[in-house]
């Protein structure tokens, strides 16, 4: 019998990509420039040297999965092609950024200074 599962630890994986960053991308940029704008790609397979994948994957406590991919292709160190979803992380997480919060919303007993105001940060 499969036991009822009420709670799963939400799984967040991959790079957070926002429309603002993608707008800054232009064909012909060097790898260093792309890395400065987008951050380090977490999927950087050693078999495909000239291809960077900015993948975002989010599985919420009820096991619903939402993910997005952004694939960048390079030709001798110059950005040659941008593919992938236009549904970027920001949309996935919803503008209110509510579910970006990975934990149940009770205020975390602050380890730091006692009595410090540990109001949860929301958008």
């Amino acid at each position, binding site marked *: 019998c499969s036991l009822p599962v009420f709670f799963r630890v939400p799984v967040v994986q991959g790079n957070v990509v926002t429309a603002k960053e993608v707008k800054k991308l232009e064909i012909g940029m060097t790898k260093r420039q792309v890395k400065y704008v987008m951050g380090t790609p*977490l*999927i950087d397979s050693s078999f495909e040297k000239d291809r960077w994948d900015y993948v975002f994957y989010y599985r919420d406590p009820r096991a619903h999965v939402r993910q997005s991919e952004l694939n960048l292709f390079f030709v001798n160190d110059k950005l040659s092609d941008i593919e992938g979803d236009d549904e970027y992380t920001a949309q996935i997480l919803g503008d209110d950024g509510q579910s970006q919060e990975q934990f149940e919303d009770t205020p975390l007993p602050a380890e730091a200074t006692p009595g410090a105001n540990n109001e949860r940060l929301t958008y």
Partner: protein
Amino acid sequence: CGGDKGINETGYSDEPLKDRQGNDLDSADAERMYKSAREFMVDEQPEKALRLYAEVQARFPFSPYAAQSEMESVTAHYKAEEFDAAVSGADRFIKQRPRNPHIDYIYYLRALSNYNRNETGILGGDPDKRDTSYLRQSFTDFSLLVQNYPQSVYRKDAQLHMIDIRNRLATFDVNVAEYYLRRHAYVAASRRAETVVSRYQGSDSVPRALEIMEESYAKLSLPDLAEDTRAILQASYPNYILHREEFYRQRAGDKPRYDLPDVGGAPAGGKPLDPDSAEGSNAG
């Protein structure tokens, strides 16, 4: 009050020196004392040998036996499973006698000490699944021995140990990748699997790592990356795929149905072990 926190290091206890037969060694010369120490070693009593070795070094520091004793006390520490003392003794020997003809043996001993330092504890349990820093240290020691002393007699065994350590470290990383796969953390799983492929080429965990990468990329809907990984797996480990199921049966310790071909080798069918038990050998 407050107790005296003085330090008093005067070396070993001072009861009279005895050799294995029990006769007194107080007035013995370097050679006799060294010989009785060796007797204790042969008789599997490293603690007693250690005392005599120390005495030889103290009383006859300039005799050839002193250097010999210093070396053999490292062995004695290793045999007595006092691995910390063995490693620091080896380090001191290496610093003071870098050109000693037996220096490769000392490197070998230090590597073995680090190799065995993780004891398994009374209830069993697999030390490789835990803090592997000593294991990594022993890998560097063995590789030092192999590079610096290519003609050393311990080179062959060191290489075998290195292969074993590399496999065990690779298994550690593959287990983590396996865990992340189960937890649907596919980016983490693919990255861990990739470290196995890039850092531990020859290890026997590479095929499984490639598989994990393939499955993770598929789940992250990166089909072309998944295909690339599949192609590499097929190209470099054909037997793994052909005999995958038997590979895991044997690895889990079940009775082998047939002799597995070399995982890394060219594609080949399995040869049945004993003719009657082979239900049907897989063709090539």
